């Protein structure tokens, strides 16, 4: 009886978290933006499957800690897309997407709006490198 209850709770929790997470991503417009840039809307069925499999796989890996004994080089291949996706999410958040137009119009520097973005990019990359390199938290 107890296990049955646990199973129900687990299933419901997972369903809600999964749906909620990706409603969030879609609302941000990140996935849409990626599809737009790659001009591959015809493949959106495949993308749904990709997202589903990716989420499932990563959940299993994280929960059950299984893995392979592969070369460290694969990490480079995995790390880069990780960063790209997080970078896109970080840009789609309101804090960035509304702040830049607001700043550039209020301070009167619309000509330099893209300079602001480059400043943000450099800041975030540097901040991330600092975080991983110099500030190791146990």
């Amino acid at each position, binding site marked *: 009886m107890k296990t049955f209850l646990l199973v129900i709770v687990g299933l419901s929790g997972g369903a809600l978290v999964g749906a909620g997470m990706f409603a969030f991503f879609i609302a941000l417009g*990140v996935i849409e*933006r*990626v599809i*737009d*840039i790659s*001009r591959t809307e015809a493949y959106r069925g495949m993308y749904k499957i990709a997202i589903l499999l990716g989420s499932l796989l990563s959940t299993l*890996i*994280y929960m059950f*800690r299984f*893995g392979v*004994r*592969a*070369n*460290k*080089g*694969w*990490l480079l291949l*995995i*790390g*880069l897309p*990780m*960063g*790209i*996706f997080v*970078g*896109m*999410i*970080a*840009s*789609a958040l309101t804090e960035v*997407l509304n702040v*830049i*137009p607001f700043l*550039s*119009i209020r*301070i*009167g*520097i*619309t*000509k*330099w*709006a*893209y*300079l*602001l*973005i480059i*400043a*943000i*990019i*450099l*800041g*975030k*990359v*540097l*901040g*991330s490198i600092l*975080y*991983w390199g110099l500030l*190791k*938290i146990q």
Partner: protein
Amino acid sequence: MDNYIYLHLKDHIKREAGQDIYLDDITELSCSPDVRDKLTKLVILQEKGVGIITLSVVEVIELIRQFIPEIPIISTGESKITIHIHEKDEYSGKGFAGLIRAFITSLLLFIGSGIAIMYFHEDVNMHKVHDAIYTAVTGQEATGSYWISIPYSIGLGLGIALFFGLLPDKNKNNKPDPLEIGIHKYKNQINSYLSAKGGSKQKKP
């Protein structure tokens, strides 16, 4: 050609100070040629200082009526127009002052974004996740090595550049990127607020 005047009032226009505003600036007109000759030189606003002025289509029609009393006028556009008169180059960021402002703002964003991303990583405990991935892929305990962190950080920058359309791409097909859309949305919000509030009234010439 039927004898009407079709008046398509624009939503908003922006002009530098020091110019008169003509009917042609604020509307698109469709009318017979002799009527058009009379109307193109019609001055809506004398040259004044800077400011934001809202005109309703009715005020424009009354102005036209002083010169063309009989022909029916049909309004096909907006019901109000917001005319924004600003100093020359006030918003473009030209000149040395603009450069200084841009530099200071960039510095603010550079440092701020760096700190923000550090807070974010700490907040979501990304370190633990990266260690888990490291162990999953290589089978060894994570020792703070940089094989994930460095490509991740580079990817972070690439992701933002990708999102804002900064990467060169010959097939961009000229679609606006989210920043342009954001600026456009913000300006629209300003304009619709101003036209709802109603700017200063125009004095009758």
